[in-house]
C-alpha cells in the first residue's frame, strides 16, 4: 500500500430510499491513516451512504474502488477488509458475552484464542460479565462488546454508524483510543457521527451531506 494513494475511492454515488433521492454525484476518497467523518442532519442519508459503501445497500449509481481495484469485481476481498458497525448490535441474547465475541470474530474469519478474548473483554471492562448471557447486559455494555470486537479485528477499513451511541464517557474515551491505534497502524475509518472525534495521531476530514 503506497502512501499518498487513496485506499478507498468512491465516485459518483447516488441512492434513493423510497421516493426520495438522498444524495447523488457524491465523490470522496479516504487515505490510509485518515478518519472521514460523515455529518449531516437526521434523515439526510448518512446511514444509507455507509451501507452503500459496505455493499449492503445497492446504490442507484456509482463506483467504489478499494486499494485500486473495483469492489464490484471482487466483493469478497473487500468484505474481508472491512469491519462494519451499524445501528443493530448483532448480538444473540442467548449467547454469553464471550460466545458472542467469539462468534463475531469467527464470522470475520479471525482466529482468536480464549486468552485474547478474555484480555479484550477485560480491556473494555466486561471481564466480570464474560459468562453472562447478553440479554443481561445494559445497552452500553452491549456496545462494549462491539469495541472488543474492533480491538481484535484486523480489518483495514472501519465503517461505523454512530459508534458512540449508548457509551458512557469512559466508553467513548476507549473508543477514541482504539480508533487512534487503528489509524496509527495505517487503518482507515469512515464514521457517521455527530460527535467531535479527535484521535491524536490521525488526520480527520469531514464529509457533509446536505439535505
Amino acid at each position, binding site marked *: 500500500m503506497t502512501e499518498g494513494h487513496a485506499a478507498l475511492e468512491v465516485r459518483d454515488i447516488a441512492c434513493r430510499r423510497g421516493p426520495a433521492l438522498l444524495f447523488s454525484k457524491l465523490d470522496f476518497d479516504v487515505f490510509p491513516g485518515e478518519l472521514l467523518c460523515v455529518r449531516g442532519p437526521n434523515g439526510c442519508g448518512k446511514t444509507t451512504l455507509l451501507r452503500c459503501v459496505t455493499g449492503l445497500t445497492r446504490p442507484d449509481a456509482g463506483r467504489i474502488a478499494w486499494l485500486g481495484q473495483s469492489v464490484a469485481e471482487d466483493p469478497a476481498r473487500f468484505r474481508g477488509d472491512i469491519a462494519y458497525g451499524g*445501528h443493530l448490535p448483532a448480538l444473540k441474547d442467548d449467547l454469553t458475552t464471550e460466545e458472542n465475541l467469539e462468534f463475531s470474530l469467527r*464470522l470475520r474469519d479471525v482466529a482468536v484464542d480464549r486468552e485474547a478474548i478474555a484480555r479484550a473483554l477485560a480491556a473494555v471492562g466486561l471481564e466480570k460479565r464474560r459468562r453472562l448471557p447478553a440479554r443481561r447486559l445494559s445497552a452500553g455494555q452491549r456496545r462494549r462488546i462491539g469495541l472488543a470486537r474492533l480491538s481484535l479485528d484486523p480489518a483495514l477499513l472501519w465503517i461505523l454508524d454512530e459508534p458512540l451511541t449508548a457509551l458512557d464517557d469512559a466508553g467513548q474515551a476507549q473508543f477514541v483510543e482504539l480508533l487512534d491505534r487503528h489509524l496509527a497502524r495505517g487503518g482507515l475509518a469512515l464514521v457517521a457521527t455527530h460527535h467531535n472525534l479527535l484521535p491524536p495521531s490521525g488526520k480527520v476530514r469531514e464529509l457533509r451531506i446536505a439535505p
Partner: protein
Amino acid sequence: MNVPSRGTYSGGFAWAMARDLRLAWRHPDEIILTLAFFALVASLFPLGIGAEPQLLARIGPGVIWVGALLAAFLALPGIFAADFADGSLEQMSLSPHPPLGWAAGKIAAHWIISGLPLTLMSPLIGLQYGLTADTLLVEAVSLALGTPILSLLGGACAALALGARGGGMLLALLALPLFVPVLIFGAGAAEAQATGLAPTPHLSLLGAALIAALVGVPAAVVAAVRISVD
C-alpha cells in the same frame, strides 16, 4: 500488510451450524413446541372423524405427512427472523465467508431442529394410527427425504418475506403451494406401501427433488437475503 481473509464455504457452513445449534440447545422451546404441535394435530383427526381402526390406518400416512408439514411450516419464521431483527444477518452478509456457506448451514441447522425430530417421532404417531412396521419405515424414509426439501423451499420463502407485512399468512401463501408436490409424493410413498404397491417411484422422485433443491435453492436463499438486507 495483512492479506484479507476470503473465507471458505465450509467455514461459513460450520459457523452457522455451530451457532444455530447452540442457540437451539439454549432455548429448546422451539423443538418441543414443534413436536407437540405435530402430536396435537395428529390427535385431532381421530377425535374429529372417529377412531375406527380401518379408517385410521387408511388416512394415517397422509395425516402424519400433513401434520409434519404444518409443524415444519410453523418453524419456518425462526430461520431468519431473529437474525434479521438484531442485525446478525447484516454482519453475515458482510462476512468474508461466501454467503452460500452460512445460508446452507442455517438451513441445515434448521432441519436438524425441526425436520429431523419430526421424522424420528413419526413412527410413534404411526403406531397410534395402527400402521404396520413396513409402512412406518417408508413413512419415516419419505419424511427424511421430504422434510429437508421443506426446510430448503420454506427457508427461501422465509427469506423473501423478511420484513414484510402480513406475517404468517404471507409466508403460508408463498410456501404451502411449493410444499404441495412434496406432500403428494411423500404421503404417496407411504400410502403405496400401505396398499401393497411399491413405494420406490415416489421415493426416487422425492430423492431427485431433494438433490435438485440442494443444488438450486441455497442460491435463491442467498439472493433473497441480499434483497432483504438492502
